[in-house]
Every structure is written in structure tokens, then in C-alpha cells.
């Protein structure tokens, strides 16, 4: 699997993503500079975390208007898998590839800690290696992770099974107490309609190395390798 990692001015988890991709796929990831409009052929496009354009105005808003995003949207529409992590998720919602928006955390504070999320489906290219219904421990690190969409959209997301992950307790129970940022319906990650795009606030790339305290993020990348080769 050949993965490309997009680098915006202000991306800062680009290296972390590349390190984990290399560890799981065995191949170095291609770093894609935001200013370049043509993108090398990749089996997976990763839009990494960070603070593209400082996240000024709104998280992801400026990056969504950069030339490279036009290319990403085009490729995504042709079915190239896209994984947006944290700021990457925010950018994907701002481009319209995923619905809704990530607002300021309910606490108004940046939160960096491990939380539990529950894969809602395991029949996708991103989650096949997870166990259905079993919570995984994963770090979050964001100030704007509070997922919002209108009720209609939320119902559609639920109805079509497009919610990828929900914040939950260690036991896998979805509850208010387990919701770190006020996200509606505890949404931590979303799929596009065709299931080829995943946007998520938690950082799977950060917990894929036992030395750093856990490997629950690794199956996500393993799933991609298995289904994409």
C-alpha cells in the first residue's frame, strides 16, 4: 500500500502519521506538499493532524480552500481512500467531503488525553481489524472536536451507518460521561457514503507503538493494508 501524507503549512502530525504508516505498511509514505496541485498516485491519502494555517478563523477552513484540497476532493470522488485525522477531519468537513462541523470543545479547553472509542462497524476498509463492539483506547488532542450537525443529518448518519466511532467508556458504553468534548451523539469519527473516506478526531497514529503506551491505533492501519494491499 502506498500512502501519501498531505503537508499543509501548520500540519504537525505529518511525521507521526508517516512513521506509523511506514511501520505498518513497510513502505515510506509519500509526503505531499500542499502547494503542489498534482499529486502522486497513492492508494491512500492521509490528511494529518496539526494546525493548518494556524487554525485561525475556524479549524480547517483555510486549508480546505488550498489548491491541494481540490485534488483531494477529486481523487476522493474517484474512490481513492482518504483518512483525515484530527485537523484532517476538520479539513474534510470544511471541504464538504464529510457533513457537519467540529466546533470548540464544550469545556473550551484543549484536551490531550487517552479516551475510549467504539468502532460502530467493522465491515469497512478502515475498521476490519477491530473487534465489533469492543472499545479501544486512543489519544485525543484537540480544542475543536465538538461534532455538530443538524438533526436531520445526524439521523441520516445513524440511519446509513456512517458513524465510524463513538466516544464510550472502557466497557464500550456510549454515555455523556464518556464524551470528552460535547460531540453530538458521541461522534468521534465518520465515514463518507461510499465508506472510502474516514474522518476522526482521535489519533490512531499516536498509539501504534508499545513504547508509547499502547497499540490500539494499529489495527486501523492494518485494516487498510489488508484491504488495499
Amino acid at each position, binding site marked *: 500500500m502506498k500512502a501519501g501524507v498531505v503537508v499543509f*503549512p*501548520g500540519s*504537525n*502530525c505529518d*511525521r*507521526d502519521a508517516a*512513521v*506509523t504508516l511506514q511501520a505498518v505498511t513497510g513502505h515510506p509514505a509519500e509526503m505531499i506538499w500542499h*502547494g503542489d496541485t498534482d499529486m502522486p498516485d497513492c492508494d491512500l491519502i492521509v490528511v494529518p*493532524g*496539526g*494546525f493548518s*494555517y*494556524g*487554525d*485561525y478563523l475556524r479549524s480547517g477552513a483555510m486549508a480546505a480552500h488550498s489548491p491541494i484540497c481540490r485534488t483531494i476532493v477529486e481523487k476522493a470522488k474517484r474512490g481513492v481512500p482518504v483518512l483525515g485525522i484530527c485537523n484532517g477531519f476538520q479539513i474534510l468537513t470544511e471541504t464538504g467531503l464529510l457533513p457537519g462541523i467540529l466546533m470548540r470543545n464544550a469545556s473550551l*479547553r*484543549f*484536551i*490531550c*488525553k487517552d479516551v475510549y472509542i467504539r468502532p460502530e462497524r467493522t465491515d469497512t476498509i478502515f475498521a476490519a481489524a477491530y473487534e465489533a463492539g469492543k472499545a479501544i483506547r486512543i*489519544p485525543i*488532542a484537540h*480544542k475543536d472536536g465538538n461534532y455538530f450537525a443538524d438533526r436531520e443529518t445526524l439521523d441520516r448518519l445513524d440511519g446509513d451507518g456512517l458513524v465510524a466511532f463513538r466516544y464510550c467508556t472502557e466497557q464500550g458504553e456510549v454515555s455523556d460521561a464518556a464524551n470528552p468534548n460535547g460531540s453530538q451523539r458521541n461522534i468521534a469519527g465518520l465515514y463518507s457514503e461510499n465508506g472510502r473516506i474516514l474522518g476522526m478526531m482521535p*489519533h490512531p*497514529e*499516536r498509539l501504534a*507503538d508499545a*513504547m*508509547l*503506551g499502547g497499540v490500539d491505533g494499529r489495527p486501523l492501519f492494518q485494516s487498510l493494508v489488508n484491504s488495499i494491499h
Partner: protein
Amino acid sequence: MTEPTTDRTEPTITPETIAAHGVKPDEYEHLVSLLGRTPNLTELGIFSVMWSEHCSYKSSKVWLKTLPTEGPHVIQGPGENAGVVDLGDGLAAIFKMESHNHPSYIEPYQGAATGVGGIMRDIFTMGARPVANLNALRFGSPHHAKTRRLISGVVSGIGDYGNCIGVPTVGGETNFDPRYNNNILVNAMCVGLAPSDRIFYSAAAGSGNPVVYVGSKTGRDGIHGATMASAEFDDQSEEKRPTVQVGDPFTEKLLLEACLELMQQDTIIAIQDMGAAGLTSSSVEMASKGGVGIRLDLDHVPQRESGMTAYEMMLSESQERMLMVLRPGSEPQAEAIFRKWELDFAVIGTTTETGRLEIMHQGALKADLPIPALADEAPSYERPYQLRKPPAMIAPDMVPARGSIADTLLELMGSPNLCSRRWIWEQYDHMVMGDTVQRPGGDAALIRIHGTNKGLASTCDVTPRYCQADPFEGGKQAIAESWRNLTAVGADPLAVTDCLNFGNPERPEIMGEFVGCIQGMAQACHAFAFPVVSGNVSLYNETNGVAIPPTPGIGAIGLIADLAQSATIALKPDQVILKLGKTRGHLGQSLYQELATGSYNGAPPSVDLEQEKHIGDFVRSLIRKDLCHTVHDLSDGGLLVGLAEMALAGGTGFTIDELKTDLSPHAYYFGEDQGRYLLAVSAENANIIDECALAASIELTEIARSGGDAITLPHESPLPLAALRSAHEAWFPGYFAE
């Protein structure tokens, strides 16, 4: 008196202008004699900042020289943007700590944010990628009206800046004391990594080499209020100019990447970030260190505002800027890199042979000053000082026992000075860069050196109440505690940076605190072969004649050759808990004493440096031999607090069957004797360690066994960990929910 040869159209200098610039009459006389003429206003402005305490270290210089600064692994000691130590395998660590106290009090969010930005520039200006940030914070009483807003502003300012740049904030310390009510301290530390053969320095060289400005545009930021007092400069603006800068972490991130990219090439002769006194101090320092002159043409400086004068540009403290001297001819390739990162790039001058700083603006020579007068010949004072007579020792039993030990523990662990700092460090991205091995909450932060199996440990320490009672012992203790914290995770302590925060040095008793602390630090650094390689001094931290407690903040780093041989504080079940070092029940200046009596009294615990080193080396050797992976050093709060912290970290309780001591229980549990560690090991390893300790003549006591989910002490009902945890975790969130 000769008239200036420079621009005479500037406002005339009056005694008031001189005073408004903070230049003392005798300093002005000295200045005039060095120049051989009177300065114009721009020149006075330049002198005033170069001769300020902040840039010249005029009160502290003579004393800083007494600190040990050398060691076999020191590549660069004090005098550069940051200190550099060799880590082996072609890598060097570059690190420094700096204060941003006053701005953080006035505008906590921006003040703290720009403090973090400033210290990171010091690091990457030398060629290092910042890999860890730490911060030492001192606030006033939690009950003080301002404290809540100050904490939340400072913490989010630090967080937002570091988080945005993507450098993990991995550690620090936080204290409360009413003596910081009107003078909070915000000290930021940054550690970076660089190839040891590609370190960049600030000494300019050659003549005719281009002087290049990169980064953000220059605005009228931070031009000191006092220096704006001259009416001539104030007329167009009805608003008093803010003296606080706004940080732009996004631009700093671009500047970081662009600088590191340029540093891959062989084009930089010298580089210096623009910190305090921006263009002035960066150009003067580069010229001074290289023994050359510099000529700047300010018309080429990228400007954010129109109509800026030479005075304003030279004194502006706009953030996120750098000055470089490049090899001639390399400008186009350098420019391409900065343009790629969408940053300003401008050639604004050249190096010269004149040894002078020449400032041109709109065709006029605005300043023409001999570089040595600005730098090496700046004033230096041997200020009178009065050493404090240390208070008498307080015997353990002079501090009253206060009922249940478990209740006291609960109260201490839930108090502002000992409670969990999670509320703070969860606002910091402490994991970005993918190498954080030990997250905040342990003795020292531990990151992996990227791409290797080596670890870099870092810590911030000082106990101001000890320094207040006895500056000498307090200075010693600060160094010892940082050395101990590094040791506790298994690291070889390497070197120290300091941030010396004190009151007004013109008062002999304050100068005495400064001297005492330095002497104590120096003695400890010698004992541990633990050199000071960088640092910062912040004086005049006082309001209405009330000074802060002497606060010589220590930042230190250490190296772990193999991360498999490191330790954490997390207790595991079925371990034997050993205590190393002597317990005398020292309660003077302890947190227990404050709880029991309402005040701090008597002598602080003293550090036996020889013993400290002996025990520390021993602990490290056990970690190296895989005999032990759970270690915690004892400091604030004493033995029982240390045990409780281990229990909470590991989610495992412990039981003490009987007290092996002649001391009364409160002195045994809460005394703050120095040079002690707790180790938790298997029963089998306990026996081996026991023998090793005997051979090394180190006092070792088996004090407890781990297991269960409560803390069980003799003659006390068990204290459930859950209750302890909620007390420990509740204080900060509760304080901010009010």
C-alpha cells in the same frame, strides 16, 4: 561636548528622556564618555536596551561567572542562545529556560504564549528541532482575586502556542504562594535536538556579507511604555502603545521549518533570533561576538505599519523574526526557501570592518555607535549584598501532630500545592511528535530520541520556600532535586539551565538572596559534575517593595542509553517497597508544617551532597541492572505523599505493617528530608538490592508492600485509593468550576 555626528533632527535629550529610558545619570555620563559625544534619541534608545538589566546582566554577571559551566560533554556553555551538550552518536541537545513574568501578569494569554515562542526560537536558531517544552509556573494565593484568570490565561497561552507548533509540552511545575500575588512567574523551557556537527552560532564574521531579516514583519510591538514618554513620539496616536506582544504560533512554525531547511545547506555564517530588543540586540550581539561591524538600512526592513521611525524599528519586539549573516551569493537560494514557507525575507544590511553599528534610514545616518560600548563595555555592578542568617533547625516534635495520618494525607494530596496538575497538562499536547515515553505526572518527563532507543529526560525544579528561609540551602536543594528527578527515571544527569527570578537587586537583602542561591547552586553543581550551560535572570520581581520569594528555577536534562532501562513511579501489585536514604523527620519549611501551624518556619532541610550523589548513583545502577523499574524520589510532602503518588499512578494500594522508626509518625511520614528514594521491586530483587545497599553503606529500609486498592497504615482505617484519587484530582477542576 561634541555634538552627535548622526541625525540631529531627532528630539533633544533631556534628563527626563534619560530617566524615562531607565538610564541612570552616572550611566549616561559613562555613555557620553565612551561615545565622545552626546547620543541622539535613537542612539539613546539603543543604549538603554543594551544596557538594561535584561540584556546586559549588569547586576548578575559577576555572580553568574562563579557557576561551573564546563564538562566533558559540554559543547557550548552560557553565552549563546542556548546551551549545547553532546548526547553521543552524532547528536546534541540544545536547551534553555527563560522568564516571561511581567508580560504574563499583564496579559496572561499572550504573555505566556510569546514566552514559549521566544524560548523555542532560542533553540531552533542554533539548528535544533525543539522536541520538548516545559514550564515552571508560580501563582499567588488561589484566594487572590486575580489568580483564577491568570492561571487559565497562562495555561491556555502556553498550550495554544506549543500545541499549534506541534512540540509536546511534557513537564513543568506549578506552585502557589501569596508572595506571587502581584508578580507571577512564568518560566518556559525548551529542549531541542541537533546533529552535533551542525550547530549554528551567533558570531558574525567577515566584511561585506549580507545581513538578512526573515520571519514576520516589524510593527510597533512592545516598544517600552517608558521609552515612549517623549512627546515627540506620541503625537499621532491617542492610544498608549501596548507593551505586550501578540504571538503568532503559525508563523513560528513556518519560521522553524524554513530555518531548519536552510540549515541543511552551507549558507549561514551566523544566526540570531530577535528576542527582547529585537533588531538592536540581535545585530549588536552578532557583531560583538564576531568582532565586526554592522550597517543596517532600515528602509529594507519588512514593516507592518507605516511611518515607523528608526527608533521604533530598532526597539520593536515584534515576535517570530530572525536575523542572519549569509555567505555572499547564497541569498537567492535562501530566499527561495523562505518564500516557499510564505515568510518575509529581506537583505537589510552588511557586515563591515568598522566595528560600529551604523543605522541608515531614509538616507540619514540615524545611529553610529561603537559595538564594544554597547556590549562588552556595558555596565557591570558588584552590588552590595547582605547574606541572610539561616533560621534555627526545628526539632520534629516542635511541630504538632494533627490527628489521623490518613486524613492528613488526604488533605495534603488535595491541597493546591500537592494536588494533581492534570487539569494543566491535559491542556498541553504532550504526545505530538510521537516520542513521548513518559507523559506528565512522573518525576521527569521522558521522550525517546527520534529513531533511536535512547531517552532524553527533562525536569524543572526549585522549592522557593526553602530558598526564602535559607538561600544557600535552597539553591543547593534546587539543583539536587532536579538531579534526583532525572536519576529517578534512570537518566544520567547531563546539564542544567536556570531561570533566576528575584526581587530588586539594588536592595542588599535581595542581592544577598541572589548570591546565596548562586553559591548553593554552584556547590551542588560541582558536587554532581552537573554544569550550567544556559540560563536567564529576571530581577525586579516586586510590587510596592514586596519581593517574590527567591526563585532560582532549575531546568535539567539527562540521558538514558537504553529505554528498556528506565523507571516510572507507577506502583504494581505484589511489590516490596524500599526506602533509600536517611529519614530524620525534618519538618521545618515542610508542607505539613504549613498545614499544621499555618506558616513555614525554621531551617529548610539541608542536602548532604556527598550522600545525595552516592545514593543517586546507586539507584541508577539498580535501574541499569534491571533490578528495579519503579522509582520515585521524595520531595514536597515527604514519604507518605511519595508513596501515595506511586499508588495513584499505578492504581495499586499498599500496606505499612509497622513503623520502623523512633520518630513520631507525623515526622516520619511527612518530613521532607532530602536525598531519599522509594523503590518498588519483587521480593527476590529486594534481597539482592538489600545486599548491594549494605555493600555500599546505604541506609535501606523495607517499609511497605503493594497490593489492594487502599492505603493501609498501622492504627488507621484503610484509605481507599478511590477517595484519595478524587481528593487529588478534584482541586483544579473544582477551583475552575466555582
